[in-house]
């Protein structure tokens, strides 16, 4: 204690001199500043997620009611017959295709004039007309029933609206006005008698229809070319199969019951697996995400098919082969692509690329390419090419990082064993950075799947599942995408309507898709860090 070496306690309080504001030292303030930033981003993320879900989840209840009305108002009943009718339409399309082939054979192969060709096709045309007209009675029935079902539905919807109106008046305390709102109750059982009562008529019409088709087939002229004759046989076969489905349709109509409940999960499955996105329709709205999802995936797939070789290839070139001078020039150029606003790219896509691709497809020397020539300027291919431009900088930069992280020692060891540059790249550098490259590709995918402007402008915006039977040519068809539909329709929908909420659910799907892609990419990167050690 009293030794000369002991220091007086007061001299040891070195912290006293620190400046403190509101009791915080500088270090504390720095910590709070950066911590605050982190907290803000987490909160924003949470808010966005909450908002998405809050707006989106109401959809499923509404969709359930939507599906229920579809059944109760008898629309489902009518659609059984409508399906039968559209089956016939598909067959007549087969027939016109057949005619076109025969016509081309005559005019192109046999060099006949078009008048002469049409002349010799007269008997075929007569047959086709007879076949086409066979459906008339069914078509008439469908259109009658459609009117009746629509009437029931409208009546029901008006009643529902009135109910809401009364509810609102009551809530506002205006009980007198509320009582004055007249609500017509819709008794589906009686209303539907009009529809279901037509069953005997339908049975008769359907039998008549089958007979007419049969008669029409016997009048089919013989096709001269064996290839076309085979097609005509195929057509006969298809018609027989088609007619064989009639009893099933009748069965569906007989057993149909408007009161059968719609299971709750159907509002989910109808969304997730629904093949139709049809809104503001006079008949029935469908909210099926499949065409949009496929559209987004197809466009992204095309983008990746182009961007992966280009992005990874140039990353390998820059990192492993290029001289310093080339690096200084190429690297910023590629990274500069991402500086283009995507709307500018989209504009370029419409004005230049789409036009150019179509022109290219119409070159006779390129007719062997699947899908060439095509007439739609805006399609999967055009949008995919532009999205590739957006993905390339992402993939390039991240893949280059991954290559850069491969220890130089591996490369030296490989060279010292007598490997060429190419062997070293293929056997050492790329395998060692493979997971980094894969996650670069995934992040590129995340980038393009969320891209909106380009697809809205260049994908063609046709809401339909592309025809995959076309093989590779499928990429020349227009599609619509998840991002595109949100951007296009969100501005027009009524807030809180089923359509509005459906768009939110599409947003949720998009959100989870991106989340999953990013998550997987991070997982892969983490594993790769460990493997390199």
């Amino acid at each position, binding site marked *: 204690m009293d030794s000369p070496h002991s220091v007086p306690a007061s001299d040891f309080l070195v912290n006293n001199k620190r400046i403190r504001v509101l009791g915080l030292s500088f270090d504390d303030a720095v910590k709070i500043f950066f911590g605050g930033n982190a907290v803000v981003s987490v909160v924003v993320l949470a808010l966005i997620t909450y908002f998405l879900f809050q707006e989106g989840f109401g959809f499923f209840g509404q969709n359930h009611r939507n599906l229920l009305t579809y059944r109760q108002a008898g629309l489902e009943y009518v659609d059984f017959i409508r399906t039968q009718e559209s089956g016939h339409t598909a067959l007549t399309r087969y027939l016109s295709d057949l005619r076109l082939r025969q016509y081309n054979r005559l005019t192109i192969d046999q060099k006949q004039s078009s008048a002469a060709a049409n002349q010799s096709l007269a008997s075929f045309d007569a047959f086709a007309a007879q076949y086409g007209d066979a459906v008339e009675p069914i078509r008439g029935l469908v259109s009658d029933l459609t009117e009746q079902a629509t009437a029931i539905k409208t009546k029901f919807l008006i009643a529902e609206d009135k109910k809401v109106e009364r509810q609102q008046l009551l809530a506002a305390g205006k009980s007198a006005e509320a009582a004055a709102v007249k609500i017509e109750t819709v008794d589906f059982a009686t209303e539907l008698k009009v529809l279901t009562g037509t069953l005997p008529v339908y049975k008769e019409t359907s039998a008549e229809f089958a007979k007419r088709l049969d008669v029409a087939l016997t009048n089919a002229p013989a096709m001269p070319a064996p290839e076309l004759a085979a097609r005509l046989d195929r057509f006969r076969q298809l018609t027989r199969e088609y007619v064989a489905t009639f009893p099933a349709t009748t069965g569906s109509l007989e057993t149909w019951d408007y009161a059968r409940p719609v299971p709750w999960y159907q509002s989910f499955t109808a969304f997730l697996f629904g093949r139709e996105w049809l809104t503001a329709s006079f008949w029935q709205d469908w909210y099926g995400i499949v065409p949009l999802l496929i559209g987004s995936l197809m466009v992204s797939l095309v983008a990746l098919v182009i961007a992966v070789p280009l992005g990874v290839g140039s990353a390998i070139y820059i990192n492993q082969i290029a*001289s*310093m001078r080339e690096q200084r020039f190429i690297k910023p150029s590629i990274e500069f692509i991402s500086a283009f606003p995507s709307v500018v790219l989209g504009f370029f896509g419409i004005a230049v690329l789409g036009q150019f691709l179509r022109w290219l497809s119409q070159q006779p020397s390129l007719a062997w390419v699947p899908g060439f020539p095509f007439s739609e300027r805006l399609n999967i291919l055009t949008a995919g090419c532009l999205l590739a431009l957006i993905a390339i900088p992402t993939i390039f930069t991240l893949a280059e990082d991954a290559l850069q992280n491969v220890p130089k020692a591996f490369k030296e*060891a490989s060279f*010292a*064993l*007598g490997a060429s540059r190419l062997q070293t790249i293929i056997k050492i550098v790329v*395998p060692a950075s493979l997971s980094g490259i894969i996650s670069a590709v995934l992040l590129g995918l995340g980038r393009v799947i969320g891209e909106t402007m380009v697809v809205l402008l260049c994908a063609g915006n046709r809401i339909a599942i592309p025809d995959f039977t076309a093989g590779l040519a499928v990429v020349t068809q227009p599609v619509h995408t998840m991002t595109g539909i949100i951007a296009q329709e969100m501005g027009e929908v009524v807030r809180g309507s089923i359509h509005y909420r459906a768009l939110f659910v599409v947003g949720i799907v998009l959100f989870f898709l991106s989340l999953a892609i990013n998550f997987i990419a991070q997982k892969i990167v983490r594993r790769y860090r460990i493997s390199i050690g």
Partner: protein
Amino acid sequence: MVTAPMTALTTSAFAMDIGTSSATPPTARPVSTVPTPSVTAPTGTPASAGPILIDIEHVDFFYGPSQALHDINLKIEEKKVTAFIGPSGCGKSTLLRCLNRMNDLIDGTRVAKGQIKIRGVDIYERSVDVIELRKRVGMVFQKSNPFPKSIYENVTYGLRLQGRSNKADLDAVVEKSLRGAALWDEVKDRLHTSGLGLSGGQQQRLCIARAIAVEPEVILMDEPCSALDPIATVKVEELIQELRTRFTIVIVTHNMQQAARCSDKTAFFYMGKLIEYADTRAIFMNPANAQTEAYVSGRFG
């Protein structure tokens, strides 16, 4: 044909144009030449002067504008261990990496003057296939660097590059090389696990196995033990003693005892110049040059 120190048999092993090799300048000195004038004359005569394998003549080397080697003259004997010693930054690694042209990988490097001949062939000649050269002159690095592949794949890497894929063949080479690198007993049960899972000393021996699997003539080792503990170091040193019967070894080391224990000849470098080159015993017991003396006795910065 070829000049005296070369044997036609081994020269042909290099994928080189015979025309070039026979065009070797007449200035090439015969084997028996005593160390070049720039080297301080060794005090003791070599115990047994073997045939010269690598002949370094008047080499100047540049990293871009800065000169790292000044007029190096050195003859490395076949099937001997030659040690390069000297303070940090004196150019040992640079010279070593000149011998298999690893410096080619660094932009802007060049051998400005002089020649490096292996069996009489100038390895910086245009017609020389660098890949073939590196197959014949293997290298082991300071920091062990097995590939992130299995032990088996590490050892067979060089052979696969040469297109050899016969399984039995490769199996035999793997066993022979791993035995040669004194590693076989430790890893024979885990050949297909990652080479990165081995200890530091084992990894370094794996790298040696990888280098000898392609049957080079020369093995260059750049401070192979500097990252190893004493026991692993002893193992590698013992290994070097076994390898010397089959290979010509050039080893860079900072460890005087190691140089003294392992090598037959020692070259002392300082500031990019070869100061003294002689039998190891002569360098350590009786150095001719005062700088050498100061360095080997530890009185040197």
